[in-house]
């Protein structure tokens, strides 16, 4: 379980994170979505212990990254967006080198290295220099290294960026597999649809602030086709009428949105008019996942 607890970080005058809090529970894949520069990578670097926060803390299975970094690092794996290694190493050698920090002997590390590198699809590149690796191979290598200690928590930072379809499928399937195995996975992306189908919840971040946490069902629901109606009045009767045709949601005193409409717009409007309810405006609303995300961003911008 990963708990991000009131984390703030400032780079000179720029506020990168402002009191960010959320958690990723076991057996859960949480999408972490925001525009570029929103603070996703900063959050993840703090969570993994490579960047100290100005305020707040991160707990990995209860171990503070600030106070008990070594133990916390034993329980977390990290695949960065752009893995940077010491490029003069060969893959297996660097794996063995890093495994040394987990207390593995050279023999154990070599054996494990061969197995894990093979599992992530780098079985043929054991003795290849890291400098010769493609972006996808580097990410797979990072994954193999993250699995040295078989941790119960994983941080995937923009992991699908720059991958071929095979690579994308690999990491998506992996996230699902990890959830099945009871692990906690934070899966960051700047594209909401990338986490669709694998994420249980999505945490939205914008300009260093959390602007919403939704389950995937909620998001789908909010992004589904709807009819936005401006009425002369909204009362229980109106609500009951609209409930027959879908799932109404009152936006303000005069506006209601009818999600998942089960009839044509004309049928709904004629019943409202026949019951003496004035209909001022009718608008068909259809949002994609990305539109939903942008609407959140817009709301956040307006709320500033």
């Amino acid at each position, binding site marked *: 379980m990963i708990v991000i607890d009131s984390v703030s970080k400032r780079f000179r005058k720029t506020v990168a994170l402002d009191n960010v809090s959320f958690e990723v529970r076991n057996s859960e894949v949480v999408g972490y979505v925001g525009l570029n520069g929103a603070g996703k990578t900063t959050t993840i670097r703090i969570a993994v212990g490579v960047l100290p926060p100005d305020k707040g803390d991160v707990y990995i299975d209860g171990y503070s990254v600030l106070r008990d*970094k*070594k133990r916390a690092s034993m329980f977390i794996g990290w695949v960065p967006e752009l893995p*940077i290694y*010491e490029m*003069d190493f060969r893959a297996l050698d660097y794996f063995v080198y890093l495994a040394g*920090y987990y207390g593995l*002997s050279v023999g154990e590390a070599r054996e494990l290295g061969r197995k894990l590198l093979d599992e992530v699809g780098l079985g043929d590149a054991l003795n290849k220099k890291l400098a010769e690796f493609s972006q996808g191979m580097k990410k797979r290598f990072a994954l193999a290294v993250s699995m040295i200690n078989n941790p119960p928590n994983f941080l995937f930072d923009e992991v699908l960026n720059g991958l071929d379809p095979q690579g994308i499928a690999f990491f998506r399937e992996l996230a699902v597999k990890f959830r099945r195995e009871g692990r906690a996975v934070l899966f960051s992306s700047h594209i909401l649809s990338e986490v669709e189908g694998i994420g249980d919840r999505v945490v939205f971040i914008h300009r260093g602030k959390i602007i919403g946490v939704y389950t995937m069902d909620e998001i789908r629901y909010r992004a589904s086709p709807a009819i936005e109606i401006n009425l002369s009045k909204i009362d229980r009767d109106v609500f009951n009428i609209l409930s027959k045709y879908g799932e109404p949601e009152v936006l303000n005193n005069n506006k209601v949105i009818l999600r998942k409409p089960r009839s044509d717009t004309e049928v709904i409007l004629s019943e409202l008019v026949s019951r003496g309810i004035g209909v001022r405006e009718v608008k068909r609303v259809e949002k994609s996942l990305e539109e939903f995300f942008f609407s959140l961003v817009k709301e956040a911008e307006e709320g500033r």
Partner: protein
Amino acid sequence: MILTPVLHDFKRGMLRLSTLIILALFIAGGLGLTYLLRYQFLTTATPLNRVQIVSIDPSEEKLYLEMYVFDEQLNKVKGDLRFTIICNGETVVEMMKSIDGYIKIVDRIPRDTSITSSRCSALTQLTASMSYLYSYTVLYNLSVNGKTILCSIEGASTISLINRSTNSLAGLATLKIFRRDAELIVIGGIYTPANPYAEFDIYVKNISATSLQTLAGRSSGSTSLGVGSLPQYVSISAKDLEKLGFIRIGRVKQGIFNSTSEPNIYMNTSYLQIVIVSSTQDIDIYSKPIVISVSKVLKEVDVRIARVLNTMISLIGTFTTFFPIVGLYLAYIYIAKPRSQGALEFLLARPVTRFEIYMTRALAGMITLVAASALFFISTTISTNAMLQVSLDINSLAVLFLGLTISLLAFYSLCYFLSTVISGGKYLALSITIYLIFTFIWQIVIAIISITTLRLQQVEPVKIVEEMARNQYRSYYFNPIQLSNFYQFYTQENM
């Protein structure tokens, strides 16, 4: 736990092509210099150690020579001995004999006009000198197996206790004595059978007229040492003397004896202790150098060791001057470069702290430098052993190695510190500048500062050089690359 990463970092530092090439160059250079030194040893005639007793009987006009000849390793020399006596430029005796480490010659000195001439007739003058405090010199060439040395029997006006009844003159050369400020040491004495102990005096003369401490504490041109002033622990028993480390250097018949030696420049302060033990007719002479403070007396074999030591010092000096570049580079690849690229972040995501990463890599670099130094040092030591048959004592080796590694580690530590605060190209630029300053510019700056301040203090010009050297030496405390100079001080003090 972090042993594996340390070993891994050590391996990639040590087996790096640049490290290996530089190390190989130094090892090859060391071998080459050792070979040159061997060539020098083989082609330069070194004086043979000799213990000789030369007696000239003026009444019989006969020369008695009894001699042991040793090589540098103090083994007896076998071969043909060529013996020439030159008196004031004239060849008096010339002969050749086969020896087996020992030779005894009794020969008649041919009287001819040149010898009896007033200018250079050493033998007749010698007879006179017994009465009239006359100084004399008999030079002779000694040549064994092609190696020739010029020897001398020298009498000086300082040999004042002349007994007219003495009918023979004995000359004695001890093993060579080396001393920084003496160019010639003459030891002489007289033996009178009637009262062997009371009458026995040993003279120590320092021809170069610089001070030479003696047991009697006098340092004039000639100093008398009474047997009675010998230290309490010295007994007159030959066996005890040998136990005390005295070397038996010969036996002389009654009469005057002296010893001449040509010291080399290695010592600060020393004096000789000569003990004479008398049997009924013959005298055993023992000599032992007494060490005061840090000095000691070198034998011929020590000269060779000293040359090897000097060669090793200059080799190590070159190594400590240029090998720090490897340390500079190691700090770059371990910290400065990955830091600038961001490659340390992925490492930091492991169960390790930032401090541990820095320490791990610092340690790996240190081990690399120590291992490289050890390889260079071992190869040099083995090559001097194999090619020159000279083994340095363990203390000197330890001090040399420590000096070498401390110097390298000091500079590496400085570079490593820099690599943790500045990264990439900036680190390279700064560390190379610092290296150049410490290696090449430092001494110039210190010299300029010294001259300026000493002139302002109106120090005498003759003392300026000495003061400058002192200031240079002090400045080494603040220069990691020059730290190795301290081992030179230690080793030279102990030579």
